């Protein structure tokens, strides 16, 4: 059984802005009341162990695809 990690705003992507309202800007229309923060389950991927590995795999796949297309183009170039 996979262990689920509860990830909140201070989780893995904490270096990114997660959405606290900036309510005091002079040009703003009135902002609605803040909604309670929702805890969202962030599961690991079903393969390769971590999302970082999945991303690296996709980029490697892209490299292989472009290389394959390039060789294909070269092979059948007039």
């Amino acid at each position, binding site marked *: 059984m996979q262990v689920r990690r509860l990830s909140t705003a201070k989780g893995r992507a904490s270096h990114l802005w997660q959405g606290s309202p900036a309510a005091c800007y002079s040009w*703003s229309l009135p902002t*609605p009341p803040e909604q309670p923060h*929702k805890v969202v389950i962030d599961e690991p991927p079903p393969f390769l162990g971590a999302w970082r590995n*999945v991303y690296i795999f*996709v980029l490697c796949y*892209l490299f292989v695809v472009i290389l394959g297309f390039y060789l294909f183009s070269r092979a059948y170039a007039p």
Partner: protein
Amino acid sequence: MRPLDWIVMFGWLAFIVSYGLYRGRGSTTVNKYLLAGKTMPWYAMGLSIMATQASAITFISTTGQSYTDGMRFVQFYFGLPVAMVILCATAVPIFHRANVYTAYEYLEKRFDAKTRALVSAIFLIQRGLAAGLSLYAPAVVLSVILGWPDRLTTILMGALVVTYTSIGGIKAVTWADVQQMMLILCGLIIALVMAIHLLPPHISFSNAVSLAGAAGRLNAVNLHFDLNDRYNVWSGLIGGMFLALAYFGCDQSQVQRYLTGKSIAQSRLSLIFNAMAKIPMQFFILFIGAMVFVFFIFAQPPVLFQPVELRHIQSDPNFRAVEKRYEQAFAGRKDAAEKYLASQGAPQALSNYRDAQRELESAHAAGEQLVGKDFHDTNYIFLSFVTHYLPAGIVGLIIAVIFSAAMSSTSGEINSLATVTVIDIYRRHVNKQATDRHYLMASRFATVFWGAYAVVFAQFGKNFGALIEAVNIVGSLFYGGLLGVFVLAFFFKKVGANGAFCGVIAGEAAIFAANLFTKISFLWYNVVGCLVVIVVGVFVSRAFDRRTA
């Protein structure tokens, strides 16, 4: 179209509406209607994203483009996997945790209401125009092929889409998209198999690929960097990445698909699926066009693929001369192709084959000139092949594929337009305190409204002529600004609302200036717009925004 084709086509259309209504049952709250109660699995979202992005014109035009220009268009998609990885790491978890219905709702949480309203308005203008075009453009082509008035085609498609989208909401849209995408994939495989199967017996698959390559139709990758060249590796990787970031990260018609996911992981998987499947699928579609090109080396194509215009020019006094030249050019190219294969690629035979190809293209262009200076029949090549050479039943299936592609794009568009209208405009600025049932009814009404709008816009499409091209350009004019404001939101913590608002306006001004005063390819507009939004946003924010503690 034979009786079996009509049965297959209308049978499929009836099935897809019934299936959409069946899967969309139980959409009794706003959350279920607009976000499917966040219950969708990755494969449904992934196929729905793919179906929404793949319009009918994608299939009609892309195959024709490959026939006339080769496969270099595939490079347009090289930036997509990179964009998907970036979005999986940033936008997906942020939108999920922000618990929003729309991407623009997040902008109010991050900046303020005016920025949300500005970006929502940009989306409604841009996507509203595109929704009409999604119906009109394939309707024009289908009407010519089916012999129907184009009004009937747009009304039929619009009515079917509005029926299941307004009743079943996004659940109906997504599950109908899944079926439609499966049909599209089946139709494409059958089309490729038939194009190869219909070649003369002495032409092997290897021969066919050689002939396509020798004619420059397999030019999938070009490493030469040129800002004015629309398709090369660099414009695809950089410009294409920015375009994909904007489309999948800031366009509600795509964001809404992955907001319906059961979890962040499911949403990420749907994008990863697209990252891996999209390029091979486009390559496959382009390859079909290349094989259709080879098929027409041995089977004489008409002087024009557009049957109505062909009938018109047959009364032109110059037609006979053009037709004779075309027939001679066809015979010359066929002979040169046979000799090229027999010589196993000898340089002189290759040169003769390419000269014969150029002569045929010139003769075809002379036929197009009889219609008008700017007339091209590229969009009719694939459907001409389908309707004239494929067996009964398969023709109906391929026409159903084109209908499906148009309907899946339009359903996604009107669903997202309705969502932004209700959530970002109506609930935010008009009626803030109504019940959930009220907003559900408003969402259904907005869906019907945008569906009707798309149909009405499509009715007037042919009166504007160049508007279609203008609408395509309009789409590319807005994405850079949208992307820039989301980059500010995600990565520039110190940038405030005024900076973001001014940044979007400056970014849009820069894109319009680039469009009016330079010749750079439209793929670079997104890069220009995004960078200007960031620079101006940071500068204005430092000067005018009060910092939060």
